[in-house]
């Protein structure tokens, strides 16, 4: 089973995403977080395989959360969720340590495949996302 930490401030989005991930069968959502700070705390105790982190959250945003999660759980692979496909956002996420970037619009279709790829040691970026230097 692939263990996943899921962080999103919108409760219905979070719930929908959890449902889609768990419906895949090989993925288990072991922790939920409504902001970056909660995500860091959950990662510290759960050390998930994959952390799916929304890029814009209150209290602590996804970028800072990515950096701190990697500081405490270096083996966790970070998948960034975002509304924005622009390169600046992607680059910042990658610099912070993210190895996947999925647009929320496509999350319903791509999220499971992305988590599997990351778990297999690969990277995943939604089609249409502008990438720099990777």
């Amino acid at each position, binding site marked *: 089973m692939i263990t996943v930490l899921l962080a999103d*401030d*919108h409760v*219905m*989005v979070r719930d*929908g995403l959890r449902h*889609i991930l768990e419906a895949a069968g090989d993925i288990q959502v072991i922790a939920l977080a409504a902001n970056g700070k909660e995500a860091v705390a959950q990662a510290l105790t759960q050390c998930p395989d994959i952390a799916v982190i929304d890029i814009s959250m209150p209290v602590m945003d996804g970028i800072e959360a990515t950096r701190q999660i990697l500081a405490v759980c270096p083996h966790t692979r970070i998948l960034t969720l975002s509304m924005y496909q622009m390169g600046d956002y992607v680059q910042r996420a990658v610099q912070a340590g993210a190895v996947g970037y999925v647009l929320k619009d496509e*999350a*319903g279709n791509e999220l499971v495949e992305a988590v599997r790829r990351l778990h297999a040691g690969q990277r995943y970026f939604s089609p249409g996302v502008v990438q720099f230097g990777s």
Partner: protein
Amino acid sequence: MEKAYKAQGNLGEKKLPTDKRASLSTSQLNAKHQQIINQHLPIGIIETSLEGKYLDANEEFCLMLGYEKAELLQRGIQDVTHEEDYQADIQLHSQLVAGEIPYYKIEKRFECKDGQIIWAELTRSVIRDASGNALYTVGIVLDITERHLAEDALRESERKFSLIFDKLPFAATLTKPQDGLILDVNETFEKIFGYSKQEVIGKTLLELGLIPDAETRERILAELLERGSVRGIELELLTKSNGTRIFLTNMDLVEIQGATYILQTDQDITERKQVLEALHESEERFRAILSQATAGIVRKGTDGTLLFVNDAFCRMVGYTFSELVSEGKTCWDLTHPDDVEENKRLFDQMIREGIPFQLERRLIRRNGSILWTNVSVSPVLGVAGYPVSSVGVEVDITSRKQAEESLRQLNLELERRVEERTAELKAMNEALQKSRRRLQVLSQRLVQVQEDERRSLARELHDRVGQSLIALNLNLTIVQGEISRGYTEQLGTRLSDSIQLAREVIVLVRDVMSNLRPTNLDDYGLESALQTYVSEFQTRYGIPVHFEKRTPPMSRLDNNIEITLLRISQEALMNIARHAQASQAKLSLQVDEKQVYLTIEDDGIGIQGQEGAKRSRSHGLKIMQERAEALEGTLHIRSTSGQGTKIEVVIPLPAREPDAISQEPSL
């Protein structure tokens, strides 16, 4: 007449053939000879042949001419006679020999041996024999040189006197005191009186009109006899050619050859007299001008002492003539102390170099008041050609100076006003600049506000609308997956969640739109828009806000005023919600003909208490203030710590156009 004798004695040894004296008896000769010698007279005696050769001469004659006797007897008349006198002498001598004349006597010049000339009186007679034949002549010579010189001197003296008398530059007459008969007149007399000498000699002065009358003549004569001379009498005398003229007459008693005469000299002074009279008249006229002149006229000494002042000057300065002139005042006593230096400099220069000058300066009147005059000063030159005094003409220019002064004051006043006006303009310009800079700030702020609003709008769309739509999308994706896999037990929950999400999105979109531009503001006006916002605010933040719509509803205001007041109200209420910790708030709107008043108050902690939120709050306050000022209105904040905050906004209404009143909502 037998005056000539033959000298005997030492002449006797001559026995010349031509010597015919032998015919005289010795006794006769000796007797004569002896007689002459005895007399010891300085008389030369000379015997001459008929041809003019000297036969004998006495010692005296030899001494006269300086010859030795032997030398003399080698010579004849011609040898010792001055060439001018020879002809006369030899001719008479011939006549004498010929018997035409018994003897002759002439004055003639002899030439001495040393060349000197002597004058002599020569008397010659002829000696004849018994039958009457001429034998020789005898001459008696008297040396008259001295007498002759004296006579020459006298003649020269007379000639000189006559010359001087004639050439005297004034008329001279010589008259007899007894009867006044004219003896002589000079050339000048002829010229001046027009009579010739011949016409007047022998006539009396009186009958010629050369003495005014007998009485005058007696009077002058008496004085003349008493003193010996009369000097400087002025007489009007009648001339022949030139009418009556004025003479200055002198008379002297003079003695000529023992007789006493009157020498009268008359000098024609008519012209001089006329000049003097003209001068006198001119002086009188000048004096009259001086006293009548309206300008002040002042004569000053070289040191500035007042020598003369006219009436006008006295009137100008308020002093009397005697106070100024007799008391020895100087012009410096009257000059204003500030003007003395310059005046003195010009005055001294004039005295030194003779250059006239003109100056405007102040005098001080007797009563202490100031008099402005224009003074023109010219030097008065003495006979030596340098200034001995000066004449100044003083013209009162006080009124002109006063006019100039008031003109100057007027100019100063004008300049001052121009300066004031310039300062006003400068201030206005600065205010304009300031307001322009403020406008720039406002317009930048406006852009900033617009961007802030867009940012918040974007965030709202992202955070709420976007997320809700994503959640909806996820739900629908899940529903689709479950239906395809045949799982149906949770479909109902998913769908009702989805419907709920769609409703939320509708509300969110409406909220965002309403924030962007409240539609009821355009449709129903400010009161309506405020009421809607207040009710939403109460719902969202749970803070009751008191606001009453008025009945009848307020008339519509200018569009800008309505939106501004709405935005200020929203900002103020948002501040209350975020920072004031208020339990309630109150909003009121009033309007009169000129202004609209908006008041928002709360019972919160007051602005001073809101330490943490100070910055964002003050930013919001600033924006509110600027919104009010953009419409030339004011916004005041009254806040007491712990006792709430009150914001008062006053916006002036634009002058109303007649048909722009109360538009009905157009739906």
